[in-house]
């Protein structure tokens, strides 16, 4: 019979044997944490037993420490008497020992037989008759290492506790004891083969590894936890969406967060008194207080204004109100990514073009489970000749398919800047039909002022509240978790793929 043991296990076995086969874990020379691990391994192999005992230890209390340094009241009394030749009147002593301390000193002094009181006509005198204060030695001992309660004389212990000089702490003590098998191994009666846990450079270079046995791992045991550097799960999802759109031939575009109403609304043919432009639906900028500088777009601005008022050359009736440039140049926070599409389209795109934007939009909503103060929109536009509503739905179906949804259906909708307007729904395994996109063909009142040859050239456009989709994919039910401030959640969060 032979036993395989690691270096550490062998060391523990040997030390324990040298201590008579039995020792407390704390008393070992080996580092306690390592020794504990090795002890468990040896126990599993039947070489030792582990016994845990709860023990009570004494340590100094704050008061105990104070008295240890300054002396106990009865010790002070002894000192005073000694300085006075072994006798002094209580009156005199009282002037040196303050109230409570005087009483304790006198009481303890008599109880321990340190002093004797003698009454005379001149008053009461204390006579010094002893000098052993048993508490002192205990206090001194426990000031460096805690002392097991059972080692202290019962009367002294009672006094120490009553006087609040000590505190009791409970500790678990681990005692190791070799089994017969353990003794046999330690004495060499059973062959011990040294096993190696970690393969090291030394072992390899010296060839030592050939002689040692490499320990087999317990593959069922959990490894230590590692927190890797990791993308944010939501950003990771947005990157996936970005990749799908780039794969479908879309070019990514941007627009500023602080935006002119012109680009966020007017150019999209959203009337200036449209409810979405009111304070409860978009953030107005207080500072910087100056409006946008739209001078470089003056002819577009003029065409857009006329289109709002009477339709200009778009074939539309227009909204029939007095359009205001001052409203158009007001600053807001981008409330829809369509602003990015509008800016890009207005810059004059080649036909065909496909563009997309994934960015944050801002709306003054009170944050709750379904509303965030800012959220991402994903917006796409296909600008091409001879596009129609069937192509729009075709793109949406393909995009949905790329996102993992097989079934799709469509419903008529209303958006101020698209006609026809379409909502896309996808079938989710557990949630049923969910709306994923608002879409449509951009209106002539938007495209014609930008210089596109409508209706030959059409723009299919769609927008997705991508955060909601991310919540479904990430299994979240509170939109605010997309901006989670919880590091532990982020460390645990799984990345979808």
């Amino acid at each position, binding site marked *: 019979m032979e036993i395989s043991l690691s270096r550490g296990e062998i060391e523990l076995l040997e030390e324990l044997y040298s201590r008579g086969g039995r020792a407390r874990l704390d008393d070992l020379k080996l580092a306690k944490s390592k020794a504990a691990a090795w002890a468990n391994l040896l126990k599993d192999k039947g070489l030792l037993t582990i016994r845990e005992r709860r023990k009570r230890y004494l340590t100094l209390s704050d008061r105990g420490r104070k008295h240890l340094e300054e002396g106990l009241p009865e010790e002070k009394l002894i000192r005073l008497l000694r300085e006075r030749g072994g006798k002094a009147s209580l009156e005199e002593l009282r002037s040196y020992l303050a109230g409570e301390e005087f009483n304790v000193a006198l009481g303890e002094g008599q109880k321990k037989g340190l002093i004797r009181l003698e009454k005379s006509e001149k008053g009461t005198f204390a006579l010094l008759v002893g000098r052993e204060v048993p508490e002192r030695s205990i206090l001194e001992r426990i000031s460096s290492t805690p002392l097991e309660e059972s080692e202290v004389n019962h009367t002294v212990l009672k006094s120490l506790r009553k006087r609040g000089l000590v505190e009791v702490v409970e500790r678990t003590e681990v005692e190791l004891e070799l089994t017969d098998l353990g003794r046999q191994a330690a004495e060499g009666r059973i062959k011990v083969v040294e096993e190696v846990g970690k393969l090291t450079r030394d072992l390899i270079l010296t060839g030592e590894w050939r002689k040692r046995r490499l320990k087999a791992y317990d593959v069922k045991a959990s490894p230590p936890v590692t927190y890797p550097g990791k993308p944010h799960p939501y*950003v990771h999802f947005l990157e996936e969406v970005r990749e799908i759109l780039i*794969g479908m031939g879309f070019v990514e575009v941007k627009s500023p967060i602080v935006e002119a109403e012109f680009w966020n609304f007017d150019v999209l043919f959203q009337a200036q008194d449209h409810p979405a432009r009111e304070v409860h639906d978009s953030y107005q900028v207080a500072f910087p207080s100056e409006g946008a500088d739209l001078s470089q777009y003056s002819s577009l601005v003029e065409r857009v204004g006329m289109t709002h008022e009477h339709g200009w050359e778009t074939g539309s009736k227009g909204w029939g109100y007095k359009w205001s440039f001052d409203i158009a140049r007001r600053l807001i926070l981008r409330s829809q990514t369509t602003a990015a599409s509008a800016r890009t389209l207005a810059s004059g795109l080649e036909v065909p073009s496909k563009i997309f934007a994934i960015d944050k939009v801002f709306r003054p909503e009170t944050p709750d489970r379904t509303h965030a103060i800012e959220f991402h929109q994903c917006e796409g536009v296909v600008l091409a000749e001879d596009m129609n509503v*069937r192509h729009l739905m075709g793109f949406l179906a393909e995009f949905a398919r790329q996102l993992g949804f097989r079934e799709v259906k469509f419903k008529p909708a209303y958006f101020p800047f698209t006609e026809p307007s379409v909502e896309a729904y996808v079938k989710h395994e557990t949630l049923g039909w969910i709306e994923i996109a608002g879409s449509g063909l951009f209106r002539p*009142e938007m495209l014609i002022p930008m210089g596109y040859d409508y209706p030959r050239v059409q723009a299919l456009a769609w927008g997705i509240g991508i955060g909601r989709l991310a919540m479904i994919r990430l299994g979240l039910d509170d939109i605010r978790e997309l901006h989670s401030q919880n590091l532990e959640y982020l460390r645990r969060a799984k990345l979808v793929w």
Partner: protein
Amino acid sequence: MPVITVNMREFFRLLGEELDEDELTSLLEYTKVNLEAYDPEEGEIEFEVTADRMDLVAMEGLIRLIKGLMERELGIPRYPMRRKAFQVRVTESVRRIRPYVVAALVKGVDLTTEESLISLIEAQEKLHDTLGRKRKRVSIGLHDFSKVVPPITYDARPADKVSFVPLGEYAEMTAQEVLEQTEKGREYAHLIENPENLVPLILDSRDEVLSLPPIINSELTRLTPGVRDLFIDVTGTDLRAISYTLEIIVSAMGERGGEIHTLEVVYPDMKLETPKPEPSEMFVSEDFIRRMVGIPMSSEEIIHQLRRARLDASSDGSIARVMIPGFRADFLHPVDVAEEVAITYGLNNLGYELPLNVMTVGKRHPREKVSALVRTLMIGLGYQEVLNYVMTSRTSLFSSVGREERPVVEVANPVSESYSVLRDSLIPGLLHFLAANTHAKYPQRVFEVGDVVVVDYSYETRARDERRLAAAYADYSVGFEDIYSHLKALADNSGIELELESYGERPFLQGRCAKVMLNGVEAGLIGEIDPEILLKLGITVPVALFEIRLPIPEK
């Protein structure tokens, strides 16, 4: 989008048949209306309608549309009509206060049940809130015509010189008292405020007050179940909007069997006949419709679909002449007719196709390209990505992290102080993130790639976005060298020249902070955070941090 609740029994009574939830849902797939709730226990149905179809806010309008889709009735409904029953005179003085009025008389309406009256009042309130912009732009007065002696005058009078019993009160009050003492008065008085203290009034020929728009009607003309003849006034600031509103109400009453009487509204400078006696017309190329819809459709099919949508249409083979009733205000351009054909035919019946000939090459935006690169490197360096809001508070940005105040973009209508300005740096967000996670295991290495907004008057919108990267390293023992080594790794691995220049700025520690120069251009800050600030945030371990601007300046 407005949500309307209708009484199920009344709805099906008017429709003339009952539909179960599935039947109703599949019919609504041919409309922009969504079924929000179908609750036989409460006896209610909830619909969500869109802002372009306010005619559907009245359930009679919705029923009219459903009848068309079911092909029980086609084309524009022909409600019996008589013209110019009497005049509504508009005085000069009222035009300064609430400039427009239109009106109509509807006789023989079926409003026998309590439910029918409630539904009418609900439609009125929905119209007030939406089209009416909370009565500012449009308000509606509904009157029992049997209590009215025409003709009518729309006039302005001094508030303290005119009195009537307002709806829901028992005693006569002056207009002044109505404005000051009634609930509606206090809520809406600001809409008609004027220096002369005049109030707009709808008065009949006896000089009886019928209503004080947009605030309250008179008790005199209160509607009660069984009312047969309605006088309807609509006043406001926008003639188009009030005319459209009148058409919606009148046509809803037409669905209830009413006979419509147009009235002559006589302004000092113009004369109108309201509601409009004739539909308007639009000529639309049928090829244009086919081009938008995407399938070959015969002229007959196009005409048929438009009639199902309750429009009238005829064709000469290439051009459709489309008649649009007054209760539809969503026809600005022929494309609106094309949409009507598409949705009535059924989007899901059209089928879809992915056009494979639109060949374009996809591309990431340069800002996202550099972001992806630095994200990869930061993740490789062992950093967890975090995401913070762009909107924040001045306190979070400055005093709480010891930064010196500087101008930042500020919104005029914040929902809360916590979200009232835009961040100009990613550093405060990262520090607050660390402060929220002091219980989590250290080391903590976190980074964010995101936009900050910098005030810049030379920019078109006075503020420009800047993409930045910030990374923070917090541990029991961590320092400048640790974060510097990571920034250096980032720079070396992306081919950027990195130099530091000694510099001091809060929240960094003096002497342990530097300006980051990337390719010779100042691009950010690096350093150890002042422990004074860490302690204030409740962070008890050292934090080293850097922030740089992206894209990285070229060499």
